[in-house]
């Protein structure tokens, strides 16, 4: 990759060796955002326990090995950590040069999904099965490349000092860049991911300083798009049913409302301290479908209670709070936009995921960052954490 060796932590100061250099005042390790890293790691580890609790009895999907999902979740977390380290090592600026390539690859990935290579899981045709039990969900990586691509376009002239804000042409280009993969994902149809991307675009535009007209225009366009999607019958019946069940939770509790109902019963029955890990009857009885992925929060709600579930929300809060600070404190607009995009992504996906288990959002197939089981999502999220760390590491110490 280009510019891989151009990365350096500091251009001055004596070269130190080994541990001393690692923990020197200006070293990478010292400058990492440890609260984000530790919170993210905690969330992933909590996630692994919850995933284990949800799957140890599900013999149909765990292939007879109760630890199947636990091991894989930990493996995914490890790979995610490595990806983060790689991202920090490369640096978000260096990655900027690679954006065209990454963007191209990710769009190619989602295009492949539409070919016979792709496969459908839970109604969403958004997977490429690699064999050996591995599969990829390219739309997860598109979220990263949309952020990087838009940030690259929007920040280019501002960071160069030419303009205070991105001009209309640049904004249009950036929107076009985001629109292409979004349309493809919409065809899958993976409505949840499209919704996340719309929010990411909104966050990116806000942070770029683009004029208010664009921001409100985009919100209006989003609303229009929703109506269009509805009218053009792009949605499958199951997706319409999810909204119907959200609007009226008592509707057909054995049918479309089943998920939300059972999820709410699971969380509600947890009380203050929960039934104890591995002792949740809703979880053990497999009353909540997709509990290791989209509904993983219900395991926390039932078995760990308000204390445990609240801790997950608090840890997400730490990640988002620190990410917002990173966005505010970095000096270059590129970093600000990337950080804001990641904030918008994490915040919306967390809110939507937890919100749907609590019955305040409609059901969509979105994983809870760090906690839900799922390789592609885990990798993309850790890459995003890497981006946040890189932005933080490369800002001046004085800031």
């Amino acid at each position, binding site marked *: 990759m280009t510019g891989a060796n151009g990365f350096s932590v500091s*251009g001055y100061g004596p070269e130190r060796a080994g541990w001393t250099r690692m923990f020197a005042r200006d070293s990478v390790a010292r400058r990492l955002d440890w609260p984000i890293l530790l919170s993210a790691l905690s969330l992933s580890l909590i996630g692994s326990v919850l995933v284990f609790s949800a799957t140890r*009895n599900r013999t149909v999907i765990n292939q007879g090995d109760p630890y199947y999902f636990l091991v894989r979740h930990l493996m995914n977390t490890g790979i995610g950590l490595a990806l983060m380290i790689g991202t920090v090592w490369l640096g978000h*600026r260096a990655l900027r040069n690679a954006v065209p390539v990454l963007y191209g690859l990710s769009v190619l990935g989602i295009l492949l999904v539409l070919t016979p290579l792709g496969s459908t899981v839970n109604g969403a045709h958004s997977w490429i099965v690699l064999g050996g039990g591995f599969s990829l969900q390219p739309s997860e990586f598109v979220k990263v490349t949309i952020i990087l691509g838009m940030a690259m376009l929007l*920040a280019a002239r*501002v*960071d160069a*000092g030419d303009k*205070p*804000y991105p001009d209309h042409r640049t904004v249009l280009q950036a929107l076009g860049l985001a629109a292409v993969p979004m349309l493809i994902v919409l065809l899958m149809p993976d409505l949840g991911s499209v919704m996340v991307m719309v929010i990411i675009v909104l*966050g990116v535009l*806000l*942070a*770029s*300083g683009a004029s208010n007209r664009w921001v409100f225009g985009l919100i209006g366009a989003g609303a229009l798009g929703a109506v269009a999607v509805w009218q053009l019958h792009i949605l499958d019946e199951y997706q319409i049913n999810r909204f119907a069940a959200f609007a009226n939770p008592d509707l057909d509790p054995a049918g479309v409302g089943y998920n939300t109902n*059972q999820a*709410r*019963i*699971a*969380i*509600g*029955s*947890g*009380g*203050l301290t929960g039934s104890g890990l591995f002792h949740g*009857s*809703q979880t*053990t*009885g*497999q*009353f909540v479908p997709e509990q290791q992925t989209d509904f993983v929060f219900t395991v926390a*709600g039932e078995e760990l*209670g*308000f204390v445990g*579930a*609240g801790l997950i*929300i608090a840890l*997400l*809060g730490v990640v*988002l*709070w620190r990410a*917002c600070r990173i*966005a*505010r404190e970095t*000096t*270059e*607009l*590129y970093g*600000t936009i990337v950080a*804001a995009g990641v*904030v918008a992504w994490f*915040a919306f996906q*967390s*809110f939507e995921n*937890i*919100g749907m288990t*609590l*019955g*305040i959002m409609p059901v969509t197939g979105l994983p809870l960052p760090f906690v839900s089981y799922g390789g592609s999502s885990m990798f993309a999220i850790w890459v995003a954490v890497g981006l946040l760390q890189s932005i933080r590491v*490369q800002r*001046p110490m004085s800031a």
Partner: protein
Amino acid sequence: MTNIPETGRTPRVQIRLVVIQILVLSLLGTLGGRLWYLQIREGAEYAKEASGNHVQRVVQPAVRGSILDARGVPLADNETRLVVSASRTDLLKQKDDGKAVLTKLAGVLGMDPQDVMLKVRLCDAKTPQPCWNGSPYQPIPITDEATPKQALQIRERSEDFPGITAEPEAVRRYPAPGKANTAQVLGYLSPVTDDEIQAAQDTDSPYLRSDQVGRSGLEREYDRELRGKAGVTRYEVDNLGRVIGQAEADPAQPGANLVTSIDARVQRIAEYELNEAMKTARQQWDRVTGEKYKADSGAVVVMEAKTGRIVAMASNPTYDPNAWVGGISAKDYAKLTGKDSNYPLLNRATQGQSAPGSTFKVISTAAAVEAGYPFDGRYPCTSSYSVGNQVFKNFESENFGPISLGRALEVSCDTVFYGLAHKEWQRDGGITPKKNANDYFFKAAHQFGLGKETGIDLPNEVTGRVPDRQWKQRFWQANKDAWCKQGKKDGTYVEKIAYENCLEGNRMRAGDEINYSIGQGDTLVTPIQMATIYAAISNGGTLYNPTIGKAVVSPDGRTVTEIKPKSHGRLPISAATRDQMDEALAGVATRGTAAWRFAQVGWPQDKIPMHAKTGTAEVYGKQTTSWFATYTKDYAIVMTISQGGTGSGASGPAVRNIYDALYGVTDTGSIDRSKALLPSPQKGLPKIKTDGTITSPKVAKDPAKDARAYQEGATAPDEQQPGATTASPAAANRDTRRRRKTPRRGSRRKLT
């Protein structure tokens, strides 16, 4: 490269970033708030919903306790039947919901596949029977009559029959040892109703849907003890109903066994003799109505005189209690309860009531003594007694001149009691009674326990009736409108009676009290009341609550709760009066109205003093009711046959035969203790083994036949048909006399 000047930082971006940060935090705050609402505020509600989600109860029915006779012979127990059941949960896991398996099963069992499918469907409002109304997690019985071969076929090829089990299960059985069916005493079971489940829900012995509940007799009276406690296992199930763990398990506790004072052999003899007596009576000509006696129902009670325990209690018509096992068929049900059924479910000994006839005279005698008439006084026994223009005849005896009360009992002289009752009626103020009338005759009846339950441990005992002033007033209030409408001064007999009743039916008229004194008129008693009274005369005056239950033995045999005899009063007679009465009643058996059933036909009166009183009650529009009340120092036996003729005539031979069997007496009067079934009442309980089982002796195939064979001597053991078939219908049985020392059994009731 690192020190980039702060060119890109503009206020607009800064402000927007702060807005984003606030927005993000408020979203998280929303989540936290909602989480608090669900888990803390509404948590209890959801926890309840969750527990309902995944706990299923599976019930193991408790084995019902046995009902045993005094020697441990089971009168009601459980038999093991091979029950083939299907588990719905297992069937539903199969591709075609188990249709193929059920069809195959129907083939093995020789049933229609359609019937089998209908049996395993669940009942709901729209589904008619057959359907399963128990828990869907309970195995559903397909048949309880599988042969061992069929069960083997199912078990050996269990892989061909997933979800099907063939297990031995306990089913209620009434084995009728020695042909003693004891139907009305035992009662029967039927499935619990929804209302009963509701009502018993919060008590400490709630019903289960699969429960059978005792509906009458001992099965009902001792239902709680016999039923035991069903085992409940609570399984945690997953969303598909698969069991994922066992939450709680209360093992089934079998019901306790009930040891009764019934002796199966005596019971059989009582039932047999009652039936034979009724059959014989039906051959007899009734001169009054001009047709043969109907003998439509009857009862006999054999009671231990010193405790009130019931040794035998037979009611006729009877039925086979096994008809109720496994659900009664509509046809059987109609046969037992229909209009033409003659109600065999009724226990005539406790639920049948009629006027007592002359057996009531012991009460009148006690009342007279209480009223100050000396027992040994001289009272005129005329052939009739007149009050105004009404003539009251001496029905049962002839003109004996002035006789004592004892002799009046012996010969059953009505006019002696007419005179005493009439005198008392006048003393009490006649038609306009004094304020504090003595009412000795009515008071005595109440003190003898009439007009209220004896307290026997059988459900729905009836009270009988003492037609005293209070009753007359109530009865008149209830009926006067009808009487006054129907009554005519110069109409038919019925209309005249109604007219009189309308005018003064609320008053005690001379005729009412006169009729009452000899047990006729409106008085109603039950056989069990009379048995209690005669037992009390025998035992010195204690009125015992009759009991059938003797002890409740826990299933492990460790706890034995004895049911002690309880008394509900004493007869209002002094010891001297009792002795005099006792002597007089012995006189009835030796030289009075019952002598031809005892002393004159070889009863060893010197060894076993017999006391008796006969009774023949008039019932308007029907044939006379036969009453026969007897006692020795050990037992009291009371028998009655509705529309059966006279006391000693219709019931006499049967009662004699029961005594013969109890004491081992033959027709010739010799006693063989080895042939005696119960020369003295059964003391103690049958032997309970350490494992809780109760030993029971063998019972002969038919003790009644054996007893008769022995009583008649070896000459005609196979004689089954009583000789009464040859009886002359021209002779009324009240005029018959038994010939002594006749070798043939039948001739005992042969009419001369």
